[in-house]
C-alpha cells in the first residue's frame, strides 16, 4: 500500500523539483505563458527615416523573442502591434490607431526626435504610457507629462559626453588646453541635431571656455553640396569639427572635405545615424578612417567590465543579433532592445500597466551602471528621463571600415588612432 502511494508521490516530487530547478537555472525560461500582452511599437517604416526605423524594429523583435523565452512580461507572451510613423502627423495618427483600435496601454518607439513629441502627446491624451527608447530631443521630458518615459540619454547627455571626450581625451593629445581649442559646430537642423549641438555648445563655453569659431545648421534632406561650408571652415581653421549628421550628409561632408583637403584634428559626432551608422563605412570605405561617434558599445567593448547580470544579458543579446542578422548589433538594435528590456523589468515589477503603479515601479528601479544591455544602469527622474549618468555611452571610431569602441578606456580593449588626424592619404 505504502509502495503504491509512494510512487506517484515520488513522481510528483521529481516533476516539481525538475520544474523548479529549470526555472532557477534560466530565469523563468520555459514558463507556460498565460495569454498575450500587446505593446504598440511605433517606428518610421517608410519614408526618409525608414532605414533606421526598420533597424529599430528588428532590435525590438529580437528582444521580444528573448523576453518571451524568459517568461514574457507579467507572465504573458509579449506581442507587438506595429505602426508606421513616417512623419510627425502619421506618428500621432498611428499612435491614436494603436490605442483605439489595437487597445494598447503602452506604446514604444520611435527612433526620431521628429516623431516622439507628436506620438507621445497623443498617448498622453489617452492616458497611455509612452516608453521612448531612442529619440533624444531634450524637450521630450520637459512638458510635464506623467505618462512619458525615456530609457536613452537625451541630447543634453550627448552634448555633455562629446565635450567631455574632446576636453579630457582629445585636447591633451593635441597638446592643447581645452580653452585653447577652436571648435566648429556643424549640424543638421532637426530637434535631434539642434538639441545635441546646443547642449555641446553650452558646455564647451561654460565648463571649458572653448573657442567656438563657427555654428552652421542645414537641412539634411536638401543639402547637396558642402563645399561652400567647407570653404568657410577652412579659413576658420578649427581644431575640432563637432558634426551632427544623418546618413546621407555625413558621407557627403567627409568626401568633400577630402576633396577640398580640409584638415582638422578630429571630427566628433553623437548618435546611431550619420557617422554612427554602418552606412558611413559602406559609403567611404578605406577613406573613412578617423571620425568619432558617441554610441552604444561596438567591437572592442570589454563585456567583462560590466556587472555579472549585465554581462549575461549583453552576451545573449549579441548572440541573438548575430544569429538573426549575421552582424554585430548596430546602434538601432541596441537602443530599441535595451529600452524594451528595461520595460520588461518595470512591467514585471509593477505587474500592471495602470499608470500610477507603473510609474511607481519605474521610479523604484535603481540599477547601477553595467547592469543591463549596453552597460546601462537605471535610475529615472520624476520627469521620466533615465539619468544621463546611468546611460553609459561610449566613443567609437571608424578604423579600417569598422566602428570600434575606444573610450572610456576602462570599457575598451582598443585605442583611438590618428589623434590628431594627419593628411588625408596618411590615415591608414
Amino acid at each position, binding site marked *: 500500500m505504502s509502495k503504491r502511494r509512494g510512487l506517484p508521490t515520488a513522481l510528483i516530487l521529481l516533476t516539481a523539483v525538475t520544474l523548479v530547478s529549470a526555472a532557477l537555472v534560466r530565469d523563468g525560461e520555459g514558463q507556460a505563458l498565460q495569454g498575450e500582452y500587446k505593446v504598440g511599437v511605433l517606428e518610421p517604416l517608410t519614408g526618409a527615416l*525608414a*532605414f533606421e526605423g526598420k533597424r529599430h524594429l528588428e532590435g525590438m523583435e529580437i528582444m521580444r523573442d528573448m523576453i518571451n523565452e524568459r517568461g514574457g512580461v507579467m507572465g504573458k507572451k509579449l506581442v507587438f502591434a506595429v505602426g508606421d510613423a513616417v512623419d510627425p502627423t502619421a506618428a500621432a495618427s498611428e499612435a491614436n490607431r494603436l490605442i483605439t483600435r489595437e487597445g494598447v496601454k503602452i506604446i514604444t518607439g520611435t527612433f526620431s526626435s521628429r516623431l516622439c513629441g507628436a506620438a507621445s502627446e497623443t498617448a498622453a491624451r489617452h492616458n497611455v504610457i509612452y516608453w521612448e527608447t531612442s529619440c533624444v530631443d531634450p524637450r521630450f521630458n520637459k512638458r510635464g507629462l506623467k505618462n512619458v518615459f525615456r530609457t536613452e540619454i537625451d541630447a543634453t547627455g550627448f552634448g555633455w559626453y562629446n565635450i567631455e571626450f574632446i576636453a579630457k581625451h582629445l585636447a591633451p593629445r593635441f597638446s592643447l588646453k581645452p580653452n585653447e581649442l577652436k571648435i566648429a559646430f556643424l549640424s543638421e537642423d532637426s530637434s535631434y541635431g539642434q538639441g545635441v549641438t546646443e547642449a555641446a555648445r553650452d558646455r564647451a563655453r561654460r565648463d571649458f571656455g572653448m573657442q567656438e569659431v563657427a555654428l552652421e545648421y542645414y*537641412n539634411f534632406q*536638401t543639402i547637396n*553640396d558642402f563645399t561652400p561650408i567647407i570653404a568657410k571652415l577652412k579659413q576658420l581653421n578649427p581644431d575640432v569639427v563637432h558634426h551632427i549628421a544623418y546618413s*546621407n550628409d555625413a558621407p557627403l561632408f567627409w568626401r568633400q572635405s577630402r576633396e577640398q*583637403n580640409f584638415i582638422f584634428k578630429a571630427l566628433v559626432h553623437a548618435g546611431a545615424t550619420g557617422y554612427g551608422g554602418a*552606412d558611413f563605412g559602406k559609403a567611404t570605405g578605406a577613406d573613412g578612417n578617423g571620425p568619432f561617434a558617441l554610441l552604444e558599445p561596438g567591437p572592442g567593448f570589454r563585456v567583462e567590465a560590466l556587472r555579472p547580470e549585465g554581462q549575461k544579458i549583453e552576451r545573449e543579446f549579441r548572440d541573438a543579433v548575430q544569429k538573426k542578422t549575421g552582424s554585430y548589433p548596430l546602434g538601432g538594435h541596441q537602443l530599441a532592445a535595451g529600452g524594451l528590456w528595461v520595460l520588461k523589468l518595470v512591467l514585471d515589477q509593477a505587474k500592471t500597466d495602470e499608470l500610477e503603479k507603473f510609474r511607481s515601479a519605474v521610479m523604484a528601479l535603481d540599477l547601477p551602471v553595467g547592469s543591463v544591455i549596453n552597460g546601462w544602469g537605471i535610475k529615472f527622474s520624476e520627469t521620466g528621463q533615465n539619468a544621463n549618468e546611468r546611460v553609459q555611452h561610449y566613443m567609437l571610431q571608424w578604423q579600417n571600415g569598422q566602428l570600434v569602441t575606444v573610450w572610456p578606456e576602462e570599457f575598451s580593449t582598443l585605442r583611438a588612432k590618428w589623434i590628431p588626424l594627419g593628411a588625408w592619404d596618411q590615415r591608414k
Partner: protein
Amino acid sequence: MGAVPQLVISTVLLGGIYALIAVGLTLIFGIMRVVNFAHGEFLMLGMYLAFWAFALWGLDPYVVLVGAVPIFFGVGLVTYALVMRGVVKASHNVQIFTTVGLSTALQNAALVVWTGDFRVVRPWHSGVVIRLGEAAFNLSQVVAFAVAVLFTAALVAFMKWTRAGRIMRATAQDVEAATLMGIDTDRVYRLAWAIGLVCVGIAGVLMSPLYSVYPTAGLQFVLLAYVVVVLGGLGDMMGALLGSLIVAAVEVIGSYLVGSAWKEVIYFVLFIAVLVFRPAGLFGQRGSETLGA
C-alpha cells in the same frame, strides 16, 4: 577672396547636376502640361539601376548610361500607357493626385524591395580629385556637368530641327490646332513622357557615384528641380540650364555668405517673386506659361 574660384566651380558643377534633373521635368511640363511629382522617384530608379549594375556585374555607371537610355524609354512608354494616358487630358488636380500617388507607390515599392539601406556606387572615378589652383572638384561631377550640357543642347536641337520636335512644339503651342492638322497628340505625349524619363534616368545614373542611393533619394533634388523649371521658364530647356546655374549660385554663395540654413529661404523667395512678377520665368516668352492650358 581665396574661396572665390572654389565657389565658382562648385556653382557650375552643382548647376550641371540640377540641370540634368530639370531638363526632363521641363520637357514634360512644356509638352504635356503635366507637373510630374514622381520625377524624383524616376531619378531614384536611375540611381538604383547604376547601383545594381555596379554591385552585381561591376559595371561602371558610364557603361550603364548606354543601357539606361532604352531602359528608361521603355519605362516611360509603360508608365504612360498604364498611368498617364488616362489623366493627360484631365484637370490639373487629377494629374497632381495621380503623379503624387505614383511617387508614393514607387518610393515605397523601392523601400519594400530594396530596403531603406543607403547604398553606394564607388567606381574608380568617384575618388578622382582634380585640383585647379585653389579649387578642387570631383571627376564624376565634371562628367555629370558635361553630359548635362550635351544633353540639353541635343534636346534643344531635337526640338528645333527635327520633324518630331516640330510636331511636339506644335502640340505644346495649341493642342486643338495640332489635332486638326492630323497630329496624333497621344503619340506626342507618349514620346515627351518617355524622353523626359530618359533624361531623369540618365541623371540618376550619373549622380550615383556622387550621392547615396536610397528610396527617398529623389526628394533631395526634385524640389530644386521645380524651382529651376519656374526660374528658367516653364517648358524652356535652355532656360532650365540657366535656371539651374542660378539656383546653384544662390545655394553656394548663400551658404558661404549667410549660412546654409538660409539657402531655401533665399531661393524660394526668388521662386515666389518669379511666379508673381514674371510667371513665364526669367528666360521664357511672356504668356508661355498659359499655353495649352
